[in-house]
C-alpha cells in the first residue's frame, strides 16, 4: 500500500499526473466512500427494479382491468420521460409535498433524503423497462404449457411461480442483463440531487486538485469494472439456468 502511495506521489511530482486518491488519505477516504454509495445504489436499484418488473408483469396479466391500466400508466410515465426529469420530479416535486423533520442538530431536513429518492426514482425508471422485459418473456411461453398447469389444478399464483417465472426468466435473461447494465450507468444521475456517489465525490476531488482527466479516467475504469462484474454474474446465472434440450 505504501509502495503504491509512494509511486503515485512520485508520479505526480515528476510528471504532474495526479491521482490523489492513491496517496492522499483524505481523498482516498471520500473516494472509497463514494464508491460504496454507488455500489449500494446499484444493489438497491437492481434488486428493487427486478422486483417491480416481476410484480408489474404479474399485474399486467391480472383479471382486474384497473390493475392492468395502472401498470400500463406506470410504464408509459416512466419509460417515456427522461430519467433526470424523474429524479428531479421525486426530489424537488414530491419531496416538497412531504413534511420536514428535525435532525439531530435541531435543523429541519426533508423527511426522505436524496439517496432514498434517487433509489426510488431509478427503481421506477428501470422497473418500467423490466416489466416490459418480463412481459416479453412471459408472452413467449406457449399458451398450451399454461393450459397444462391449469388442467393439473394449479392456481394462477402457483402457475406463475412454478412455470411462468422460471421459464419467462430464462427467455428474457439477455434483455434483462442489458437493462441492468443501463441501470448501473444511470446511477450517476443521483449526482444531480447531491447524493454523494462516485461521480459526486470525483467532482469534489477534481475541484480541489484540478486533476479532471485523471479522475475521469478512474471513473471510466470503475464503471467498466462494475458493468463487467454484473455481466459476468448474469452470464454465470444464465448458464446455471440452462436446461438441457431446451433452446434457451
Amino acid at each position, binding site marked *: 500500500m505504501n509502495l503504491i502511495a509512494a509511486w503515485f506521489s512520485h508520479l505526480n511530482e515528476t510528471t504532474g499526473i495526479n491521482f490523489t486518491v492513491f496517496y492522499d488519505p483524505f481523498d482516498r477516504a471520500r473516494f472509497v466512500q463514494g464508491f460504496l454509495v454507488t455500489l449500494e445504489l446499484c444493489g438497491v436499484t437492481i434488486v428493487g427494479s427486478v422486483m417491480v418488473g416481476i410484480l408489474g408483469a404479474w399485474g399486467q396479466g391480472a383479471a382486474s382491468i384497473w390493475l392492468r391500466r395502472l401498470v400500463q400508466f406506470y410504464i408509459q410515465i416512466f419509460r417515456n420521460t427522461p430519467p433526470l426529469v424523474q429524479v428531479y420530479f421525486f426530489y424537488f416535486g414530491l419531496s416538497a409535498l412531504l413534511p420536514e423533520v428535525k435532525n439531530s442538530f435541531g435543523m429541519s431536513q426533508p423527511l426522505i433524503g436524496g439517496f432514498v429518492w434517487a433509489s426510488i426514482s431509478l427503481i421506477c425508471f428501470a422497473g418500467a423497462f423490466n416489466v416490459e422485459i418480463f412481459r416479453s418473456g412471459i408472452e413467449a411461453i406457449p399458451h398450451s*404449457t399454461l393450459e*397444462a398447469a391449469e388442467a393439473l389444478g394449479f*392456481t394462477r399464483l402457483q402457475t406463475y411461480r*412454478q*412455470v411462468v417465472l422460471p421459464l419467462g426468466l430464462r427467455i428474457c435473461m439477455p434483455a434483462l442483463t442489458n437493462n441492468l447494465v443501463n441501470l448501473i450507468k444511470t446511477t450517476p444521475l443521483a449526482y444531480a440531487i447531491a447524493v454523494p456517489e462516485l461521480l459526486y465525490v470525483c467532482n469534489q476531488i477534481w475541484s480541489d486538485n484540478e486533476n479532471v482527466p485523471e479522475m475521469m479516467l478512474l471513473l471510466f475504469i470503475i464503471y467498466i469494472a462494475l458493468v463487467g462484474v454484473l455481466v459476468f454474474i448474469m452470464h454465470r446465472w444464465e448458464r446455471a439456468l440452462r*436446461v438441457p*434440450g431446451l433452446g434457451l
Partner: protein
Amino acid sequence: MVEALLVIDNLHKRFGNVEVIKGVSLTVGKGEVACIIGPSGSGKSTLIRCVNALVPFEQGSVTVLGIEVNDPKLDKLKLRKHVGMVFQQYNLFPHRTALQNVMMAPIQVLKRNKAEVEAEAYALLKKVRLEGKEHSYPGELSGGQQQRVAIARSLAMKPDLMLFDEVTAALDPETVGEVLITIRQLAEEGMTCVLVTHEMGFAREVANEVYFTDRGVIVEHAPPASFFTNPTDPRTKAFLSQVL
C-alpha cells in the same frame, strides 16, 4: 349399465358467431372407454376441453362424479382433482425433469408429502416404462417418451377420469405404439377414459363406445364392433371409407 361417471347433456359451445358444438349428449360409465372420432374441426377437442372447464360453454350440462361443470360457482380445483388431461403437444414443463414434472402437481396442488410423492412418481414412471429417464429433461426425450411422462404426470393426481386429446397425433408411427400400450394398460386397469383420436384400430380394440362427430353434433355412436363394420349414417360411412 355401470354407474355413470361423466354425463354430457345437450352441450352447446360457440366461439363468437360460430357454434362449434351444437347439442352433444353422451354418458361414460365408470371404467369405460369412450373414443370420439371425426374430421378436423368437428368440435372433438373443444368437447373434452369443456369437461375439465378449460373452455367455458353457454348451454347444457356436464357432470363429472356429480360435479356440475357449468356452474359459475364451480370449484375448478375440486373438478380437476378428478379429471386428468393429456394433450396433443405433451405440454410438459420444459424446465423440470421427468420426475419433477410428475411430482409438481401433487406437491403444489394437493400439498402432499414430498417423499411420498417422489416414491409414487418413480413408480408411475416405471409404469409408463420410463425407468432410467427420471432425471432427463423433456427436451432430451423423444415425443413418445414425453407423452408418456405427460400421462404419468396426470396419473400422479389420481384422477377418476382421463381425457386424451389426440395424444398420438404429433408422434411418428413407430412411437405411437408405445403410447397406445400405456393407454391400453390404463383402460385394462379400469380407468375411465375419453379419447379423441384418429387411431381407428386402437379405438376398435379398447373402446366400449365409439362416437362419430361432425360439424358439432354426434352423428352416430355404437360399440366398436358394430360401429366399424355396420355404420348406418352416410357421413360415418364416408369418413370411415377414407380413413380405414
